[in-house]
């Protein structure tokens, strides 16, 4: 267990270093921000001053070293365009991303668990088939297209839900469903298989033999035991949402971190792109690490290195 833990933590740190390096070198190699910042009348002297001010005159490895050091100190620099600290921009937008991810996770759980349980209990029935179709479609649907079609149907045709932006709860429904569709399908299948396994176990047979009410058997003995992997999975999903945030946020004009990154790529505001990608990736990697540790703790086969 100890070895697994140390290895897994080290791997996460290495992954983070890879992300930092990719982001740094690519954004620096892609073009000179000076040209975007100064207007055409700027003299060479202006360019020099600005270059030195931004630290862009130093050799790349030196810039890289300074950059890594600053990240470790929690300093992401200032935005090239707004001159405000990058951390402020990121903090403003991160709240929106987390809010959307959280609601999407809640929605997936609320859709996935009851449906999965139902299709396990009524195995092979029409509902089970329906759930299968729902899951297969979720696997193959382009997220951004689903989002647009939901806007078309609920926003334009029916006019009952807002098409984008952030505001009251109604603004959350469509983006959260879009983000959570695949995952609710995944939770559904996981709940179904986990429930089927539990329902076939001896203690369920025993509970039935004891003459317990079927509902008590299903909800108390069945679901409670089937839920363990599902809950772990739900946490993992939340982490996945962070990685995919950029797509849904763009479709629904949701003012989150993913969209900020995409906007800043267009304006070549490197510090924001770097900080945004690092924060999302960091949360993503840390979340996955947590899930793995939690799961290995709960699953002795992994804990003892046999799986």
């Amino acid at each position: 267990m100890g070895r697994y833990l140390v290895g897994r933590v080290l791997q996460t740190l290495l992954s983070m270093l890879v992300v930092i390096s990719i982001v740094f070198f690519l954004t620096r190699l892609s073009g000179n921000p000076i040209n975007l910042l100064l207007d055409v009348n700027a003299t060479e002297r202006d360019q020099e001053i600005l270059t030195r001010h931004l630290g862009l005159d130093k050799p790349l490895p030196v810039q890289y070293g300074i950059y890594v050091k600053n990240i470790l100190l929690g300093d992401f620099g200032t935005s090239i365009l707004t001159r405000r600290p990058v951390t402020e921009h990121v903090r403003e937008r991160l709240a929106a991303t987390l809010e959307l991810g959280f609601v999407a996770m809640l929605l997936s759980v609320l859709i996935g668990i009851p449906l999965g349980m139902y299709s396990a209990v009524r195995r092979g029935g029409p509902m089970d088939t329906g759930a299968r179709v729902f899951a297969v479609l979720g696997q193959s649907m382009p997220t951004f297209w689903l989002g647009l079609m939901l806007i078309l149907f609920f926003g334009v045709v029916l006019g009952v839900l807002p098409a984008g932006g952030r505001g009251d709860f109604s603004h959350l429904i469509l983006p959260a469903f879009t983000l959570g569709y695949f995952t609710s399908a995944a939770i559904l299948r996981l709940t179904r298989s986990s429930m089927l396994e539990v329902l076939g176990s001896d203690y369920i047979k025993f509970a039935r033999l004891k003459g317990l009410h079927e509902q008590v058997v299903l909800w108390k003995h069945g679901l409670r035991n089937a839920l363990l992997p599902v809950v772990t999975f739900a946490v993992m999903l939340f982490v996945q949402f962070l990685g995919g945030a950029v797509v849904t946020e763009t479709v629904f004009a949701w003012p989150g971190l993913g969209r900020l990154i995409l906007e800043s790529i267009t304006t070549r505001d490197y510090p924001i792109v770097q900080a945004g990608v690092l924060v999302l990736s960091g949360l993503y990697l840390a979340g996955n690490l947590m899930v793995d540790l939690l799961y290995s703790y709960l699953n002795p086969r992994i804990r003892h290195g046999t799986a």
Partner: protein
Amino acid sequence: MAQHRRQLPWFAGLILGALVLTALFAPVLAPQSPTEGDITQKLVPPVWMERGEREHPLGTDRFGRDVLSRIIWGSRISVVVSLVAIGVAGTVGTLLGLISGYRGGVTDAVLMRLTDIGLSLPTILIAVVLVAVSEPSFRNVILVIALLLWPRFARQVRGETLGIKEQDFVALAVVAGRSSAWIIRRHIFPNVIPTLLVISTLQVGYVILLEGTLSFLGVGVPPPNPAWGLMIADGRGFLATAWWISLFPGLAMLLTVLAVNLMGDWLRDHLDPKLRQLGVRGVVLESADAVPTGHAIEDAVKG
């Protein structure tokens, strides 16, 4: 259920056949040019609607380009991008997987740590940054997708290699004094081919969705190419007035990915029962990055 699973997926086969034929014969099949439109014919609705025209069965976009023709030509982009990206990633991943599994020791440790890192990155986020800063182009999209894809092949092939290496025929070849390269080529590689075929098919849907997402976000295949993702993005501003611009390319994408996934599932069950646990993973973007982390959970998903 078991009976059902054994049947050849006709629906998937038909759609895939149609897709390949469409991509091959796009110049013959497409009624109009995919990139040049008639500005006087812009935003014409599909033929069954009022004002619809027979020359534009699925309507036209804001530049008067024929939506059907663009979808037909767009199939080429999806086919080419997925074939090339998977070809590149598959070759690199297989080579590294074979070497890693056969050599073992330090080589294996280093290569597998690299693979773990590759698999742990948030795919879309990295892809967006990589393509955006390296200028969107066909080549860059393919390279970035391949870069994100190879670890999946490496991991799986390495696992297979470890098993095959223990077989008697490999031991005999070693005793007979054959070189490692010869053994890998003659004994190990042929035995990983079924697995390779299955992983490749399972990745096609993923690659099509990833390319579509990148193009949709404006960091994929550049306009005016008729990439499906790009077409869907084009229609964003016209949802209220010209929904057909976004709807039909999305349907094409959905059907294609659906067909590939069904085919991949079927192949997996037939060629390689060991891979059954690969299941749901990797097909949808948000969850695609889930591979090493929590893959015990994913095994369960495929119940």
